[in-house]
């Protein structure tokens, strides 16, 4: 079934997951979570990490029961041919929407922060050309590219460490000021930033490692990601005062914009350029997942054409979304879709697997 075989190594899976999860919303994460959890936003991020870890355990349970099945086979084994196919179709739609939302937000932010005069449909087109180029490569090559580009995360950490010299800890004190309900509500806001972990369900069959090893890698990547997000959020929370944070929708970029060095006067431009890479890696993985699932679904069609078709679909969906208020409203609803596909559906899978003790049938 899997024509590509087990081609990626476990350390590559680590970067694949991290790069997919860190995407367009990293620059706005502190603001999103601040709006509900105030100065305790970082606790929400930490808690989300814990929740996602539970989700990973749940995924691994399903994966262990069906170690060599592709995602489509799992769906069909659990729900029968028709409903199984329907669920795969839903996942395809989900990933297309995820990619389109990412694209729309990307266009909006880039227009606001870097290129106000370039028409944003051009920005989207250029992005899609890059994605097309990467996604047509083998998964192995994509993974290697992700390992390579992970260096840029160090730049993020570096800039954020630098910001700590102006930190004001009193902005987040007293800890727990916003109360438990708000902190828990914050988790929902953070969830979209963790989206991408569901790829584990699809990608695991390509990993050249024991299932136990995959669990280990997924756990490590989740821990790293949680720490990374918590750090980024915490930095913005102590750097910008609460009232200011309310006004600044992309605090991470704003923070970098306020620096100026002797040689680089506008570090935010460099920072934004780097962020484009993170967006590209996220998008590529979403498109890859869509492509993989649709090719599996219909078993025919040239992969190149399918990819181009999918990209065009994403483009068409993204175009009307790239307006501030429209995107805001749509994201508000879409975060529930993310939770549905990341948590609820896999949970149903898990329960069925567990209760009826479903297992892979030896062929």
């Amino acid at each position, binding site marked *: 079934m899997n024509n590509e075989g087990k081609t990626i190594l476990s350390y590559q899976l680590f970067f694949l997951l991290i790069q997919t999860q860190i995407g367009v919303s990293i620059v706005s994460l502190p603001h999103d979570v601040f709006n509900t959890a105030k100065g305790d936003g970082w606790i929400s991020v930490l808690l989300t990490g814990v929740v996602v870890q539970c989700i990973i355990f749940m995924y691994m349970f399903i994966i262990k029961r069906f170690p060599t099945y592709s995602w489509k086979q799992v769906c069909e084994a659990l729900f029968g041919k028709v409903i199984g196919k329907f669920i795969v179709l839903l996942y395809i739609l989900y990933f297309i929407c995820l990619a389109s939302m990412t694209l729309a937000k990307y266009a909006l932010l880039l227009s606001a922060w870097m290129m106000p005069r370039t028409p944003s449909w051009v920005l989207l087109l250029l992005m899609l050309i890059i994605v097309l180029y990467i996604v047509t490569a083998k998964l192995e090559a994509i993974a290697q590219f992700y390992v390579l580009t992970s260096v840029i995360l160090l730049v993020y950490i570096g800039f954020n460490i630098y910001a700590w010299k102006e930190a004001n800890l*009193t902005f987040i*004190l007293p800890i727990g000021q916003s109360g438990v309900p708000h902190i828990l509500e914050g988790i929902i806001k953070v969830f979209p930033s963790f989206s991408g972990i569901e790829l584990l369900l699809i990608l695991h069959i390509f990993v050249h490692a024991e299932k136990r090893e995959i669990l280990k890698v997924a756990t490590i990547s989740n821990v790293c990601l949680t720490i990374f997000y918590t750090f980024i959020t915490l930095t913005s929370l102590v750097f910008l*005062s609460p009232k*200011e944070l309310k006004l600044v929708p992309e605090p991470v970029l704003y923070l970098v914009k*306020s620096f100026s060095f002797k040689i680089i006067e506008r570090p935010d431009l460099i920072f934004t350029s780097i962020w484009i890479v993170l967006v590209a890696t996220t998008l590529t993985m979403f498109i890859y997942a869509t492509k993989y699932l649709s090719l599996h679904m219909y078993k025919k069609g040239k992969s190149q054409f399918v990819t181009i078709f999918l990209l065009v679909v994403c483009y068409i969906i993204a175009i009307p979304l790239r307006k501030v208020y429209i995107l805001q409203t749509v994201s508000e609803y879409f975060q529930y879709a993310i939770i549905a596909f990341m948590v609820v559906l896999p949970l149903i899978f898990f329960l069925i697997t567990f209760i009826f003790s479903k297992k892979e049938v030896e062929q």
Partner: protein
Amino acid sequence: MRSVVVPIILLLLLTGCWDQRLLKEHSLILAIGYDLTEDGKIEKTITFPAKSGGGGQVSISTKTETISVIANTVKGAEIKTDEYSPEKFDRSKAKVIIIGKDLAEKGIFPALDSVYRDLRAPLYASVAIVEGTAKDALEVEDTYSLLTSDFYSQLLTTATEAGIIKDDNIQEICPIILSDGKDIIIPRITLLEDGKRAKISGSILLNGDKWNGKLNLDENVMLLTLMGEANKNRKMNLLVDPNEERQEKRYVNFSLRNEHRQLTWEHTGDNDITVTVKVSLQIEIDEYASDHLYDEKKAKQLVDSITKQTEKRAKKTIEKIQEANNDALGVGEKIKAYDPQLWQEINWKETYPEIEIVPEFDIEIIRHGILN
């Protein structure tokens, strides 16, 4: 096929750029001044280097030109400036923003809105408030053969290095203006000799974003010390021996080498909050004409009188900032963070002028130059 397609794509993609702003089409403004006119409009004054020479050669002279326009808002004035000039003005490299007294009294934050909103805004420009109008400040004559814009930014930088003012940039003042438990102080510029010259004369105490009082340089240095803004170049001059015959012998000059500040508070009764600012200073004597510092006893006496004098000055300073309802020390911030219950009970803006703030100094002479 490929050898044709690839170059065409490269040519199309790599050569063009929408978001270009060519330097030759722009005139960089390095200093901007904002004033409030009598009928409530914004007057914006910009200064830029005058271009001289011809025949394609453009040399930058030390002469500057200024343009003033009046409009309803800051951004409106920006647009209006274009009506006066053949070149597009670009404020993104501004080094200093000067705000006139009238505008400062009405509140500076609305005027800065466009700066915070603008992608290319000069967030790291210094801010200063002038006693008078920003227009006059930018038209000073004697700038020590520097451009007016450079003059102000260097004036502020040098004074900051000497530790006599705190030069916050646009970005740095924003979180403080917007926070509940802390207020900002902004360097104050005074014009001398009918606007011929300008100098730094202390700082403006802002209540929220409004001018609400001022400090002179001595008090400002004291306030910075109380704020715990460490600076190894900061110096103080105090009257210690008022009974000495000669003027020089009455004073002592010293540099602050190490500072450590501690802020504690006690909540007694309903609205009685007593705040203690404990400052430990390690000082080096720069000038003390009475000498005799080899004698430890004599040195101790000196320390005692220095302590007494600093506390006296500190008290006066604190009185002034409380009068201006300016919590530059960040007492509210601390209480909010470490005693949230108390914070809930009080209305800080109303309570702050009433509370008692006690400065306590612990001074130690660690060196006295190469002379005893």
